């Protein structure tokens, strides 16, 4: 429950010391092979192959991600292949998705292309997931 309320209103996630983390920005020329882990915001306009754990993830138009995503909030305007585990998912009209989207709430804009399933899960499913990722 605290996780949900935090998600709902806090605009930028805070670190342990209470300071704001600036968003990470992966430009379109950047390619990452490996896993990303953050408690903050990530904007991806380049290519990422691997697992991503974040509070909030944005795959911008032109961005491509292949792998699993665990996040509170995901917004996709680019291409994605893999699995998403997120409480809130927003797919823009330019999104192209292949795979599964485990979500609690989802928004899909007109024009988005989705090849796969979008299973709904209760909120506690995602809480368990968080423990799981911390244990890794």
């Amino acid at each position: 429950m605290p996780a949900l309320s935090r998600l709902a209103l806090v605009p930028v996630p805070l670190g342990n010391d209470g300071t704001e983390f600036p968003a990470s920005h992966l430009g379109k020329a950047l390619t990452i092979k490996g896993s990303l882990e953050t408690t903050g915001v990530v904007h991806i306009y380049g290519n990422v192959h691997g697992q991503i754990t974040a509070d909030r993830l944005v795959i911008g138009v032109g961005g491509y991600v292949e792998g699993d995503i665990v996040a509170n909030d995901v917004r996709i305007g680019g291409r994605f292949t893999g699995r998403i585990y997120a409480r809130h998912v927003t797919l823009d009209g330019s999104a192209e998705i292949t795979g599964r989207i485990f979500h609690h709430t989802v928004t899909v804009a007109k024009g988005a292309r989705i090849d796969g399933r979008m299973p709904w899960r209760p909120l506690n499913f995602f809480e368990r997931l968080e423990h799981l990722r911390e244990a890794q």
Partner: protein
Amino acid sequence: MNMFTRNDKSFDTNAASTTPVRDKTETPVAPIAETKRTSPPAPPTYEIATPQTRVVSVISKALKITGQLESTEDIQVDGEVDGDVRGVSVKIGGNAKVKGTVYGDTVELAGTIDGKIEAKKVILTSTAHMSGDVVHQDIRIESGAYIDGHCRPEFGKAANKNAHAAAKPAAVVPTGSVRDKTGPVAEIGTRA
């Protein structure tokens, strides 16, 4: 039919009379609150512009990457990277940690590298902590920098040719970063 038209009319008049008032007094939050009970899935904070406009990619301090980064543009690392970093102009910020090799045209280090630097131009600022070798063509070390390793002026020479094949094309191009020789250094220096 009658009912529909009547409804439409009354709605229209309603809307016409109320909207100007609402626009004045209330923010666009109100309609969202009406339609959606739960939290809005896409807060406007999404479209945050990056703080530095010149730096193309930023790995912020909360981000940890395990794996390889490769870019044909500039990279600023303020977080943690466990793996190699390839870029044109690579800046490793004051609190950043990199475990692996950093390749680039220009590499500026204010944080920690445990590995190797291979770059045409290397700048170690006063807060730099470098454990490992530095292969360079041109190096600047500020007072206070820590180096545990060899500095070899062999960048671009035959022995290294294969090692950084991907970094080579960038190295051939005349350094675009010369123009901001003072800029980024001062920036990192003040932050430290």
